[in-house]
C-alpha cells in the first residue's frame, strides 16, 4: 500500500504533463471549434498537478523520513540534501503555473487573441520541462535509496 501511494504522485504528474501537452497542441491549432477542449485540457492539467501535490505531500510527510535516513547514511547523501530539497520546493513553481493555465484559457478567446496564445505556449512549456526535470530528480532519489541498501556496490 505504501509503494502504491509512492507511485501515485509521479503518475499524476505525468498525466498533468500529458494534459499540458494536449493544451499546447490544441492552442497551436486554436479555432472557435476547439476552445472548449482547450478549457477542458487546461483544467485537467491543473487538477492533476493538485493531485500530485496532495499525494506527494502525503508520502513525504508520512513515509519519506525512513528513505531520508537511508539516503543520508549512504553514498548518495546529496540525493536528499540537494536533489530532494530542490525538488520539493521547485514543485511549487509548477503548481502555480498549472493553476494559472486555466485562467488564461478560460478568460481569453485563444482563437483570436495571439497575445494570450503566446502566454499559453510559454506557460505550458515551462510546466512540461519543469515536470520532466522533477520526474528525473525523483528517479535519482529512488536510486539513492537503492544505493544505500546495496551498500554502494
Amino acid at each position: 500500500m505504501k509503494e502504491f501511494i509512492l507511485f501515485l504522485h509521479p503518475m499524476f504528474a505525468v498525466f498533468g504533463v500529458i494534459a499540458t501537452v494536449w493544451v499546447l497542441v490544441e492552442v497551436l491549432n486554436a479555432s472557435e471549434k476547439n476552445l472548449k477542449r482547450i478549457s477542458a485540457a487546461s483544467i485537467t492539467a491543473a487538477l492533476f498537478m493538485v493531485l500530485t501535490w496532495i499525494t506527494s505531500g502525503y508520502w513525504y510527510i508520512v513515509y519519506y523520513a525512513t528513505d531520508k535516513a537511508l539516503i543520508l547514511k549512504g553514498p548518495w547523501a546529496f540525493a536528499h540534501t540537494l536533489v530532494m530539497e530542490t525538488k520539493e520546493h521547485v514543485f511549487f513553481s509548477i503548481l502555480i503555473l498549472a493553476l494559472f493555465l486555466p485562467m488564461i484559457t478560460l478568460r481569453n478567446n485563444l482563437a483570436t487573441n495571439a497575445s494570450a496564445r503566446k502566454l499559453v505556449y510559454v506557460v505550458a512549456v515551462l510546466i512540461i520541462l519543469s515536470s520532466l526535470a522533477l520526474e528525473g530528480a525523483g528517479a535519482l532519489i529512488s536510486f539513492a535509496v537503492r544505493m544505500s541498501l546495496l551498500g554502494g556496490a
Partner: protein
Amino acid sequence: MTTTIYPESGLNRITSGFGISAVITLVASMLLTIMKESYPPLLSFMKSISILGVKHHWLVHGLAIVILFYLLGWLFSSSRRDTNISGASLATILAWATVLSSLGIFGFYLMELFK
C-alpha cells in the same frame, strides 16, 4: 456589407492580474525557501503550525504560496489601474521568474552542500 473582425490584443484583466501574481509568488517561494532554511526560528514556527492535525513546514509553505497567489491575483485583477501588459511580455517575465527562482533554490542548496 462586410464585417471586419479585429484580432484581440492584450490580455484580459484577470489574466494580467494573476499573471503578475504568479511572477511575485514564484519569487516569494524562492525567498521563503532560503529564509526558512537560513533562519531556524522561522522554520520552527512553520513546523509548529497545525493544518488538519498535521504539522509540517512543507505543508505550510505550499498553502502559503497558493493563498498568496490567489490573494495577489484577486487584488491585481480588481485594481482599477489598467495593467495593459501583452502576453509576450508577461510570458517573458514569467519564464525568467520560473528559471531564476528554480536556479536560486538549486543554487542555495548547492551552496549548503559544500558548507
